[in-house]
């Protein structure tokens, strides 16, 4: 029969592509041990480029000979995508990489105290110098790997979902934002002696945005720096609420964000591994909102502590009052207007937040010299950077892809996702519409939801899906065999269900 014969040829091409990818990885491993196969001037850009091309070849061989459609055959049979030992091995490798990257960069070859780089990091010196003029750092190398992964696996995703324009557009978008805004632009800014600035992220995901050194760096960098600083503020308070109102949080989480970008491309083969249990949903709600509360409190504390130096036009007192208003007013509004819609745990959390911040206010007003949260904000900031910024978002967030699915960080940890989620749930036109009674309860939508939403539970009751965590990836709608689901920006933010 015809297809067996043709697919044989495609198989050969796929093996060739796999071979190339293996060779490239071997070259990286050798270079890590200071064994050069090619000159660094060639391999620093050649290896990433070759990887992307090999991925393109592989994707072509994998999908081009199959009619466009959903390609989930055997997902739960393959050891790598069903939590068997290859998945555990990969997870171990990824977590080890992150531990070394964050805590022992010298083992990647980072030169300390002025010593030149060695190993893997030295290999990327030529590329780094060409872009920014500086030698490579571990973060530069990580940026190259990250961007390469999004581009390579992004091409694979484009091929896999080539019949679906929504999927193609949003994947092209994350590839563009990662390459242009998260990777190239900041490097070029540095080359021009301007501050490093990534436009594809903002506070509180960008958790050091309000650290003193960062604010100073921006404010002292002339008009451009000041503009950047205010752009960051506008993003938080004006642009993102508007875009989320209009389109849901997907405009960021699955069209722009780098964390989301990696999850949607490299993480796509693992999306079905997210837990759909009620328990997981409960943990998610407590965890992500607690992290948001900590991030907000920490930021207020950090800012307050450096405002006390008196170098800035804002006084600590007016800042604390202002920020407490910014936090408590929307919370109170939510609590009172959306009372029936809020689950019990959400009301408890909101009340706890209100209480916490009132205590802070009283404490601040009556003992203006004390620490505003009774602990040193700098210490909190340090631990946050360690546990949330490094361990959670990196080591667990990416390292656990093959075990817990691709959006562990986005679902359980990201404070920005938490804010956008609250906006999406209560103040956005976005919803997933359910098409009458066509649902056959097959469960594909729930299984392939990377955020662990039990989509079927809504669809089979004919209820639209309005969930804070939904990142609008649109895969539920893509895999649904009966065309039941559609991501929509409705006419109003009310009556979505």
């Amino acid at each position, binding site marked *: 029969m015809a297809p067996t014969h043709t697919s044989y040829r495609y198989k050969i091409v796929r093996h060739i592509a796999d071979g190339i990818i293996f060779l490239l990885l071997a070259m990286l491993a050798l270079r890590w041990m200071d064994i050069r196969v090619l000159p660094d001037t060639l391999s620093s850009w050649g290896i990433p480029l070759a990887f992307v091309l090999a991925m393109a070849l592989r994707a072509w061989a994998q999908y081009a000979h199959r009619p466009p459609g959903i390609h989930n055959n055997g997902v739960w049979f393959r050891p790598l995508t069903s939590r068997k030992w290859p998945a555990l091995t990969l997870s171990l490798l990824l977590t080890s990489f992150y531990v070394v990257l964050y805590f022992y960069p010298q083992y990647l070859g980072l030169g300390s105290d002025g010593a030149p780089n060695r190993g893997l990091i030295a290999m990327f010196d030529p590329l780094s110098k060409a872009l920014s003029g500086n030698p490579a750092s571990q973060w530069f190398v990580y940026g190259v790997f990250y961007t390469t992964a999004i581009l390579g696996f992004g091409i694979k995703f484009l091929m896999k979902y080539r019949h679906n324009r929504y999927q*193609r557009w949003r994947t092209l978008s994350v590839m563009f934002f990662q390459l242009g805004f998260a990777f190239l632009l900041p490097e070029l800014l540095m080359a021009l002696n301007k501050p490093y600035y990534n436009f594809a992220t903002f506070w509180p995901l960008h958790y050091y945005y309000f650290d003193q050194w960062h604010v100073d760096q921006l404010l002292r960098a002339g008009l451009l720096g000041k503009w950047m600083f205010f752009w960051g503020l506008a993003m938080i308070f004006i642009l993102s609420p508007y875009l989320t109102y209009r389109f849901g949080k997907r405009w960021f989480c699955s069209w722009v964000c780098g964390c989301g970008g990696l999850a949607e491309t490299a993480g796509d083969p693992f999306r079905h591994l997210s837990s759909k249990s009620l328990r997981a949903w409960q943990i998610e709600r407590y965890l992500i909102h607690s992290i948001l509360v900590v991030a907000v409190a920490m930021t207020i504390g950090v800012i307050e502590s450096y405002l006390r130096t008196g170098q800035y036009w804002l006084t600590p007192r007016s800042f604390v009052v202002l920020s407490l208003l910014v936090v408590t007013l929307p919370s109170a509004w939510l609590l009172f207007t959306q009372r029936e819609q809020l689950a019990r745990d959400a009301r408890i959390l909101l009340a706890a937040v209100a209480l916490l911040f009132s205590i802070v206010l009283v404490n601040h007003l009556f003992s203006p010299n004390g620490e505003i949260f009774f602990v040193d904000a700098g210490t909190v900031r340090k631990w946050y950077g360690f546990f949330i910024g490094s361990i959670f978002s990196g080591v667990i967030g990416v390292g656990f892809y093959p075990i817990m699915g691709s959006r562990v960080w986005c679902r359980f940890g990201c404070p920005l996702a938490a804010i956008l989620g609250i906006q999406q749930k209560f103040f956005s036109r976005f919803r997933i519409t359910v098409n009458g009674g066509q649902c056959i309860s*097959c*469960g594909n939508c729930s299984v392939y939801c990377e955020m662990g939403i039990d989509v079927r539970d809504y669809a089979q009751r004919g209820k639209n899906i309005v969930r804070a965590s939904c990142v609008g990836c649109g895969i539920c709608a893509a895999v649904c065999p009966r065309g039941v689901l559609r991501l929509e920006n409705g006419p109003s933010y009310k009556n979505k269900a």
Partner: protein
Amino acid sequence: MTRVAIIGNGVAGATAALHIARHPNYSVTLISDETPYFFARTALMYVYMGHIRASDLKPYPDTLWDKYHIQRIHDRVTDIDFQHKHLHLAEGNTIPYDILILATGSIPHRIDWPGIHLDRVGYLYHLQDLHRLEHWTPHIRHAVIVGGGLIGIELAEMLRSRHKQVTFLVRESHFWNIVLSDSEAQLIDQHIREHGVDLRLNTELEEIVDDGSGKVGAVRTSSGDLIPCQYVGITIGVKPNVQWLRDSHLHIDTGIVVDEFLRTNIEDVYAIGDCAQLQHTAPYRRPIEPVWYTAREMGQCVAATITGNPTPYRQGLWYNSAKFFDIEYQTYGYVPPHPDPETDDFLWQDPPHYRSLRIHYRRDNHAILGINALGLRLRQEQCHQWIQQATPLPEVISQLPLAAFDPEGNTSYLRDIQQYFQAQFYTTNSP
């Protein structure tokens, strides 16, 4: 406490159980022999293909049944004593009831072909059929599927996903063209072949040949071909699972005959889902409709009726959906394979993208009667509104974007349809 016993935990029985158990004064016992839990029969194929796990077949968490205190019994009802109101189970127990709901579903239709009893002749209905197929899979190189309907094409897709060679015997001149028009069915024929299936139209099964050890060795077709194979899948439709009730006073025709309140001829006994046959049908609808949502709706109606809110089951406008390999199919209202003398079809097709839209309308006032869509998604609410309000075809076409339900960015074909309509309809329908 009113004791309600339900036989069959398919979507009909399970839905009824959940809706009745919400009311305090009822205790519900759900008895089924297939599985101890309700599962989505519609998704059996995705388990075999590795898209989902068997545990993902359960539409509700296990805890739900306990939450509503629904007693579940995994056993077969062998006999019903309608007079004394109790059930006999295969393992010897008897269950008394005050109200009985029969929701026994269907069984696969079979014909006594020579060789039908050989090992590795399979069906696709019960979970056990899937287990058997899984068990046989390592021994299958070539499979033959008999019967060109919705389950046959699912079975073909399943076997292709496991890299089996598949020969698909279809009695009609095109796939499922007892429902689809020839133009639609031809599109599907082509797509089936594109997936590497050896599709044989106008071909019937003559006999299944023993391989010498009591297993399937080959099939002989009506055109005289002998096709060596290690598995034969029989998918020639389903019939109500009522044979075991035929000796009783229950009024049974093809299915268990019920009135509009889903009552049988015996007091306090109801029948819902695939096994029920409606005494009165709505225009263009059939007395037995073995599909998922009708079973679910009957479950809801019977629950309301039993719990003191008598609710007739009314067949509204017909709709349904399916998927033929990669091509989705949706249908709304009345769309026969061929137009009658009073009606006509507007047909638009985009064969390279496997898209097709067929709108059935009356010749006199151009009011639309139904819509068939292949490769595109339509909004049910909108389609129903057009059909119920007898909206004229030109208006439907100009408002078509209101019904677009494809993912954002995937609706550019709408303009093609509108342009094609402008060019076609007014030239053929002008005086």
